[in-house]
């Protein structure tokens, strides 16, 4: 593993120590150890079946049967739930659910306010500011299932912003999203990192990773490489991850 030891004073945004996770009866992550530094826009990349989604799901406690140790912002998940925002893959969200855009964004305040209490005027301000920041404030009252893919993803990012999380984890955030929205969302994510927050996105478009991300973890069942995005996405590493893995491991 070619991890570059960055001597940051902060705890890592995410660290996994000897984590094994299986999904649907198959071991997808086998004894993975990786550390993603805080304050950076980081990508988790790799071929299909490499365990990208499983890695973030294991980190977030969404995949059972996990062995090993996970730390988010230096702590176990249960101590930092309100500080971690999760934007799941679109197909795990009920697509035809009766809910409006603003109601989705309000969910970002529940971890702070509790699940039974009313939101405060301060919450409403944060919700409106978040929607404004990603350009969906005028869609607040719209039913979610009448929005385009790009508009929907802006709404979900607004939810993460309204949560004011220190770590935002996104799973394939740019599928079914137009290029203009992708660029705009990446700008917002970059701003978060400049504020000292951390962003980790599962992503498959290597070109955007090279151009827009600070840090990358290249997976293929195991960690092939981790470090500054450009130094990870070398021809040699990519061949190890994409070229040979399907033949040797049979995990296409």
């Amino acid at each position: 593993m070619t991890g570059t030891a960055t001597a940051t004073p902060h705890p890592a945004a995410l660290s996994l120590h000897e984590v094994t996770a299986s999904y649907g009866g198959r071991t997808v992550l086998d004894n993975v150890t990786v550390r993603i530094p805080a304050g950076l826009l980081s990508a988790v990349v790799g071929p299909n079946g490499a365990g990208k989604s499983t890695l973030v799901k294991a980190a977030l406690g969404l995949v059972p049967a996990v062995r090993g140790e996970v730390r988010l912002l230096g702590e176990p998940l249960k101590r930092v739930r309100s500080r971690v925002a999760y934007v799941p893959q679109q197909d795990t969200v009920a697509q035809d659910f009766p809910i409006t855009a603003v109601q989705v964004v309000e969910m970002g305040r529940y971890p702070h306010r509790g699940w039974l209490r009313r939101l405060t005027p301060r919450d409403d301000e944060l919700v409106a500011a978040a929607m404004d920041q990603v350009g969906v404030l005028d869609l607040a009252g719209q039913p979610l299932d009448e929005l385009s893919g790009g508009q929907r993803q802006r709404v979900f990012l607004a939810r993460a912003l309204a949560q004011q999380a220190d770590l935002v984890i996104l799973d394939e955030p740019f599928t079914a999203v137009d290029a203009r929205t992708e660029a705009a969302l990446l700008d917002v994510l970059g701003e978060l990192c400049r504020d000292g927050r951390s962003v980790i996105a599962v992503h498959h478009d290597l070109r955007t990773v090279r151009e827009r991300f600070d840090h990358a973890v290249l997976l293929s069942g195991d960690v092939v490489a981790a470090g500054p995005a450009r130094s990870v996405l070398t021809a040699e590493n990519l061949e190890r991850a994409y070229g040979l893995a399907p033949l040797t491991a049979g995990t296409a």
Partner: protein
Amino acid sequence: MIDWFLTALPLPYPDAVVVVGTAVVGFVAGALGPLAVLRRRSMFGDAMSHGTLPGVAVAFIVTGTKAPEPLLLGAALSAALAAFAMIGLERVGRMRPDAAIGTVLSISLALGIVLLTYIAGSGNSEQSGLNAYLLGQAAGMVERDIAIALLLGAVALTVVTIGFRVLRSATFDPGFSAVAGVPTWAVDAASTALLALAVVLGVRTVGAILMVALLVAPVVAARQLTTRLSGLVPLSGAIGAACGAVGGVVSGRAELPAGPVIVLLATAAAVLSVLFAPRRGVLARIRRRSRPGVATR
């Protein structure tokens, strides 16, 4: 209180009992139906409703009476058993959900029919009318049925109201909710229990075979008319109540089983709503598509 209300209605007393009783049952089913439809558990609810049959029969064999309480309890226990059987087949037996549902549904129906036929041949004079649990019967409802339905319905709707935000979030986006600290297993268990309650309350009126339609059709009808869950739940309940009340009286007068009549009404409401709902209906969408510049999907 119930008595006063029933005599105040401009209907003959037996009709009043049926109208109010079926309306309450229909409201509870319609209001809890989103727990089945939005969670993609409609067929699971169908299997649970078939699962009530063996319990009803066993409860009758054990107690020898048709008093509503023991039969409801038997129905509830056996619906819960059906639910556990399906979850067990999926998790432990590694069966696909549709296969697990199909297995439990058909076994429950088979067992129920065998037991009910045995009871019918046993010469127990109390047994006539047990067949209502197959296709439903609204006539013969008594005030005590209304009281039980009101009590259990109030408990269920209170749980839904208090836990509304949790139920909505966990159903809409289970991943986000789990990370935010919602115990999703508890939400699953609570939804299944509430669904079982709706089924058990409705099964005598609508019948085990068609009960699922009273959970699903009002939701389909109401979904076209609202864009928020907080609107869907009461509207679906109201549609369920209306279909229950009208169907209950009509079936009694026409000497038809109540289940099919109520279900046909609810289905008609769903079809009308899908076609003609002002904003989301098929016609409205077609009209919108012919007008450019308006977001459609």
